[in-house]
């Protein structure tokens, strides 16, 4: 190890196409689950806002789901989805994303001040109509904040999938470790950070466009 430098640039130069392929695979494995998670979180969150009793048990379940170590969950899924398939990694990532996004959706929907809510009702909005027209737009800053957390975590977690044969850039860690060759590992860490940063920039821009009134970032508790 002593004579091996942290990064051998020629290796990166020789493998640009290979790295690009892994990056694309990683983006799909990590981000499609967030998208699906969002699509699930919206109706679930609306239902929870409409029927508050639903929320407590759901929140408790997702709290536990979120705490499950990813490797263990990947492994448990293998008999059903197969070794080294995208589904083995993407299904758990979807649940992790949902576990982050459901509370933020509900928080966002609840963030509308009570007087505003009552004014909307007084003007003749029905409960569902009001949720869609008043509370949903107001929750956008919360949603975006939640998606940011979910996306970054998902990008980082996806690399663990390499241990069950499908982890996008995570494969570089295994490759580098087995060959005692740090360059791929460093490349993997950097590319994952870059992917996370790029995603984050896209999301912040999206928030500026979708919710120009929200000056301040809303906090996410995870």
């Amino acid at each position, binding site marked *: 190890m002593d004579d091996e430098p942290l990064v051998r640039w020629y290796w990166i130069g020789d493998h640009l196409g290979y790295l690009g392929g892994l990056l694309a695979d990683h983006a799909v494995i990590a981000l499609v689950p967030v998208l699906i998670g969002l699509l699930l979180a919206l109706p679930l969150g609306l239902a929870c806002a409409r029927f508050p009793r639903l929320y407590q048990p759901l929140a408790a379940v997702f709290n536990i789901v979120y*705490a499950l170590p990813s490797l*263990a969950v990947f492994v448990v899924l293998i008999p*059903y989805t197969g070794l080294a398939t995208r589904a083995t990694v993407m299904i758990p990532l979807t649940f992790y994303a949902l576990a982050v996004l459901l509370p933020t959706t509900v928080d966002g929907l609840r963030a509308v001040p009570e007087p505003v809510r009552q004014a909307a009702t007084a003007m003749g909005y029905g409960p569902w109509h009001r949720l869609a027209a008043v509370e949903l737009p107001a929750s956008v800053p919360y949603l975006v904040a939640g998606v940011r957390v979910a996306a970054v975590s998902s990008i980082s977690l996806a690399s663990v999938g390499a241990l069950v044969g499908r982890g996008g850039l995570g494969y570089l860690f295994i490759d580098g470790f087995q060959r005692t060759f740090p360059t791929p*590992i460093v490349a993997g*860490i950097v590319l994952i950070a870059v992917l996370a940063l790029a995603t984050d920039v896209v999301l912040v821009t999206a928030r500026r466009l979708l919710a120009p009134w929200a000056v301040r970032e809303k906090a996410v508790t995870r």
Partner: protein
Amino acid sequence: MNWLSWLSDFIGSPDRRSGPDSILNRIAEHLALSAEALFYASLLAIPLGLLIGYTGRGVTFVTATAGATRALPTLGLVTLAVLLAGVGDTAVLLPLVALAAPPLLVAAVEGVRDTDPDVRDAARGVGMTHRQVLLGVCLPSALPALLAGLRTATVQVIATATVAAYVGLGGLGRYVIDGLATRDYAVTVGGALLVVLLAVAAQLFFALLARYALPPGIRAQRRPD
């Protein structure tokens, strides 16, 4: 696919009863490594976070940096650390501490900053020194946040300690990794279920702690959340 037979194979094996690969030993290893990482992370992050939260200096930096550390891939950090420092607890401890520290730091900062400003004002007003305000007023009111941060950090560390088995460390991850390597699915699944159980138990532990160990005035204050 037969879960029952896998589990009975896993638990039934004499290796699980005693010796280095026994369930008790693996759990102990897993807990010891996690606890050690959490201890160092707390030692580092909590006092620093309390200070930053109290003075208000560097808060933006902390929140921005802590968010960014989420992007760090645990497997990458662990493999890199081992390549650079050689197999051993210290090599793995470093990334574990690096992963556990940010949530603790943020929790301490936010917890102190969330102290009711009137209470802080009153504390100064009755003649408490900065040290007395921080330790006697802000710290107790930051306890719920700190506990939540510790929970997040613990979850994170237990998961990462599992992954750390890949580089040759003990703990429950051993079963998962070795099972995968030898195509012994019974061992893999058994290990995975134990990890899940451990994570749930840790969650439960912190839920109970938050319920019963917080000072009553603080606990009740948080109830409306």
